[in-house]
């Protein structure tokens, strides 16, 4: 046997377990749920009754259901606010936590703490107790300002403001990613820049930010994926509502879930497109 073939066989034996798992726990459920989305499903006492309707449920979700465009817009509007807020906040915190000062470990421990606490139910409890917001964000000045926005945007902004602190809580992992990125930059680059007369502000823009662009990209992707299952997500509520609703049933709910999955892929594709140039991925 040629060495190359043998290497490939060895490699394949390492991936085999994962591949079986993929077929069982991803490929099969995805195909199954896609078939479900093409059927109207009624629940009998002992089994599910499938009635093939083709893409009708997709058509219905996209063009006939008044709730879905509203909720999707709300989700996109919220994400447009939340994602930059989280990433910029994480970036600022990472910059501060990456400077050397006594007690840095304690601060790091505090800011990474929410990473272990971000459980949907707990966050909901805290938001219900109005612990998720910052009091100055609920002052009348801010409220009046928000009310000048178009209604749908006002709702998105209000939702975000009401859970603003919880939104910030979701930035722990991103801080870790960005700090790791900052540490990957060779310190001698900063020294060289300093000798050439660059001040800290210039080094930030010319060395740090370009150096951590891939990490910023990863933080953005992570934040978006994280938002799918975040407790402030309005689309998930609609999907789960339809799962429980006998009239629309599993089929319709799955169709919406698939559209939601496509929306996520489109958003991620769009983000990749934005970052293509700074990442040097021009292909």
């Amino acid at each position, binding site marked *: 046997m040629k060495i190359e073939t043998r290497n490939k066989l060895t490699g394949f034996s390492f991936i085999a377990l994962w591949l079986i798992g993929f077929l069982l726990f991803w490929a099969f459920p995805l195909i199954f749920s896609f078939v479900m989305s093409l059927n109207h499903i009624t629940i009998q006492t002992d089994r599910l009754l499938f009635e093939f309707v083709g893409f009708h449920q997709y058509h219905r979700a996209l063009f006939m259901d008044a709730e879905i465009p509203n909720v999707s817009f709300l989700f996109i509007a919220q994400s447009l606010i939340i994602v930059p807020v989280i990433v910029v906040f994480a970036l600022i915190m990472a910059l501060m936590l990456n400077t050397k000062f006594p007690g840095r470990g304690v601060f790091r421990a505090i800011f990474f703490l929410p990473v272990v606490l971000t459980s949907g139910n707990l966050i909901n409890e805290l938001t219900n107790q109005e612990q998720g917001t910052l009091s100055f964000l609920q002052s009348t000045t801010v409220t009046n300002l928000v009310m000048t926005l178009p209604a749908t945007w006002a709702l998105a902004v209000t939702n975000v403001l009401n859970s603003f602190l919880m939104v910030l809580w979701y930035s722990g992992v991103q801080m870790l990613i960005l700090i*790791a990125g900052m540490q990957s930059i060779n310190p001698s680059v900063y020294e060289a820049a300093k000798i050439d007369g660059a001040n800290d502000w210039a080094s930030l823009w010319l060395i740090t930010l370009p150096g951590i662009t891939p990490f910023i990209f990863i933080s953005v992707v992570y934040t978006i994926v994280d938002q*799918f299952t975040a407790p402030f997500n309005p689309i998930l509520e609609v999907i789960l509502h339809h799962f429980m609703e006998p009239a629309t049933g599993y089929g319709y709910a799955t169709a919406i879930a698939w559209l939601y999955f496509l929306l996520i892929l489109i958003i991620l594709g769009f983000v990749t497109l934005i970052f293509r140039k700074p990442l040097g991925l021009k292909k």
Partner: protein
Amino acid sequence: MSKHKLLDIAKLVIILFLLVIFALLYLQPILFMVSLSFKSLSDIVDPSTRWIPNNPTFMNIEFALGQMRILPMMLPGRGLWDNLVTSTLFVSVLTAIPSALVQLFTCAIAGYAFGRCEFPLKRTLLVLLALTYVVPPQTIFIPLAWLNNQMGFLNNPMAFVAPALFGHGLNGGLFVIIYMQFFRKIPKELEEAALIDGASPYSVFLKIIFPLAKPAMVVVFLFSLVWHWNETFLTGIFYTRIATLATQITQVNILPQELVQTLMPAIMASGLLFITPILIVYLFAQRFFTESIERTGVVE
């Protein structure tokens, strides 16, 4: 020179000032939770008591212990397992720890394959790996529940351990990527030397490569532990007769609205009981954890 030093100190003071403010804001909900958990009724009505209760009480914690079903209900005439799974703490621990331990190993195998090995269709499989990370669980939970039902894994932690055995499971894709990035940075000579000495590729992985991945193991194990502990959606689907601590919290919330107001301290006490175990793990592991993340470089 001295002007430079002064500027540096001023910068440090500003940074510290901002960090302290943000740290207090960050901790406020947790402190609120702790404070309210120990407040007695007289403290709640008394507006002058903000943080430290005058008459601290364990009543709320006691109530929450019952409401959260922390302890198993030992009923005679029922099997030991059936008795133990009535404890939410038992279910949470049995969901999180085995899954995390299994993922720690199986995701490393897949990560090694993607990071260091050659095999047919590697590029396609890499795309599929990324795909597993972005599929919302809401899209596929019914087939998964069906699968678990067929295998008898409903109401059993195996529902989470089984996919983990194959290098998947909760956020398995992310863990494979973390290992992949880590293994890519290990010098190739290490493997080659061992292979020339006559070691099989499997013992090279087990005895040389895998033990090197300790920083990645720490990150994967802790994240897996935390995410399984905090999971509410899939546990809510797969566990119909049993509950984890994370899902049990909502049960407290179902109480009538008027009661919820007076039971607020009890609800917060429930939350406190839920986060305490993971908080203890975090306090012990956090230094090692943050250092490991920097050494693995997580994702590049």
